[in-house]
């Protein structure tokens, strides 16, 4: 079976790690082998953050090799050029321009909207699994908003 490589990039505070946590949780619950990698430490200070998820039948290196990402999602357009070398030729690039930002009710939920757009490209992962994982990942008062933003992102393209 093939390996699927997903990279999410953004700036500290945008919730990059939050959505790759949710994504990896969904994959784990679907019984794929999955690994997730990122570098912690400096991300709180507003610097570049990049998180990588790989899944398939069997995964070895937790890091996506340059030029081998199937999907690159970018939460801040300034990070596109920085992260682009990881995307394979013909890979899918998702940026905030690809989601209906006019429907974004809270700028902090851009991450879940982008997660929706990512999920639309992963037919092997059911939508309900994402919804459940999002509900588990947020406190009650933020659940409905994030599920809604996820669905808008998922249906955007």
């Amino acid at each position, binding site marked *: 079976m093939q390996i699927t490589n997903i990279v999410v990039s953004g*700036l*500290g505070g945008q919730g990059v790690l939050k959505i790759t946590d949710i994504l*990896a*949780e969904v994959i*784990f619950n679907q019984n794929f*082998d*999955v*690994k*997730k*990698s*990122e*570098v*912690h*430490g*400096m*991300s*709180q*200070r*507003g*610097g*570049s953050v*990049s998180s990588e998820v790989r899944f398939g039948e069997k*995964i*070895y*290196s*937790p*890091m996506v*090799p*340059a030029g081998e990402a199937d999907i690159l999602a970018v939460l801040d357009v*300034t*990070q596109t*050029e*920085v992260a682009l*070398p990881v995307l394979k030729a013909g890979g899918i690039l998702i940026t905030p321009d690809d989601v209906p930002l006019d429907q974004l009710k809270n700028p902090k939920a851009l991450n879940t909207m982008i997660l929706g757009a990512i999920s639309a490209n992963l037919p092997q992962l059911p939508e309900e699994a994402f919804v459940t994982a999002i509900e588990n990942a947020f406190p009650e008062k933020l659940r409905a908003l994030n599920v809604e933003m996820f669905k808008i992102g998922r249906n955007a393209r």
Partner: protein
Amino acid sequence: MKFFASGNEAVAMAAFDCGVNLGCGYPGTPSSEILDELSKLGGAAEWAPNEKCAMEVAIGCAYAGGRALVTMKHVGLNVAADPFFTIAYSGTPGGLVVISADDPGMASSQNEQDNRRYAIAAGVPMFEPADSQECYDFMCAAFELADKFRSPVLFRMTTRVCHSKCVLERRKATPDAKKSGSFTKDPKSNVMVPAFAKLAHRRMRADLKTMAQINEEGKYTRIIENSSEFGIITSGIAFQHVLDAAPEASVLKLGMTYPLPLDTISKFASKVKRCLIIDEGDPVLFEQLKAAGIEVENKAEEFRFGELNVARVRKLIAGDDTPDAPGKPGKPPQLCVGCPHRKTFEVIRDLGCIVSGDIGCYTLGVMPPFNAIDTCVCMGASVTVGLGMRHMLPEDEARKVVSVIGDSTFLHTGINGIVEMVYNRPKTGHVVIILDNRITGMTGCQENPATGYHLDLTPAYAVNFENIVKGIGVDNCDVIDTTAEPEKFAELLKTRLQSNDCSVIIARRPCILALAKRSKMEKK
């Protein structure tokens, strides 16, 4: 039961499942999450003021029969090296596992030292996990080995092993029963005076030979037999990259990397035409195999720098040692908007100070627009390096020198510097600014002895900086909120710099992330 967990979470689970009696440490990326996770699971865990204290508390716990875990980043083991080298001789009856989280590539560190060398230098057995499952399994094995030989065990992780998440099976269904405390007087084993230490050293070397034999049994080793043309000897995270980069190769993957199973390695090396070593960092495996007369090919020097990844391993195998083309740099981290250090650094910069800096968020003061850190060596060095500069510089330059040190760093190893300051006073005096933001910020807002809370957020005695420095005997100590009163701070600093006093200024205002943490705590 299966989990999707980071290496740090996995070692915490394993330590808990092994019935660990106490986890001690000092925060440092990439090790910081381990003790928090242990505490969340219900284990006893504490932040010590520094790694040496943490190691010694753990040693005491293990002398008293307990299983003890001590966690730190690689440079932390430099601080704790003194007890580490001698506990290697004496050992402890309870079982002591020392986690060193190395940072090849320096994602968040001041150097990329390879702490595998500590295992060799001290004569301590070492495990090197390659993923979260091995973090769990090897932590259990480490406590077993510690029990068998009453030896401390070094558990060497790296950034990618600590922070990558993968699927792991938590093999122990129920935690081991916790050991109960007891102390048997045994000075020959526990008192390292020369007469007893001489015996202990011989015993330690003999034990290492037995451990090497145990390592030959293959419990911690994986051998993948493929090509007879090409074999790779590897350890740690490099193993994962090797499996992706060279699926055709035969692989010998070592789990216990000191003392080495030299017979196993020799046999493997003799079966393949080309035998290449692929590990991150220094040529630690190569040097030992070369000394043992095993013919192996070392990685090119280029690959001792930074992290490995699949692409670099491919290049390494192909004999291509050209440096990677640098990518477009990302946005560097910076002091938060609203960070109390900002105003402090603006004032220091505008006064044209020579700034002896230290380790913490405030090291980011080196970046524009502050440009207000001139040296940074290691934890606690700001005070003493500043004093050395004061001794050497001509008077008008010496008067510009200030030391800046964070609250947690001050408690870590800054206090000794204040003692040095009042004892060997520079002619021009000195000024130390304690950047007291009421938290250990850089590593993710851990508690420290001055915050008033323990690791598990129960209330604690809060150490008072004013009392400490006054007790040591500084000439004056002022407390100021530099964000609220920047002009007053500038005037005060000018006055202190012009005097020949040994002064401490405590710039006190909470970190905005700490305030967020406190408000969350209140809601609970």
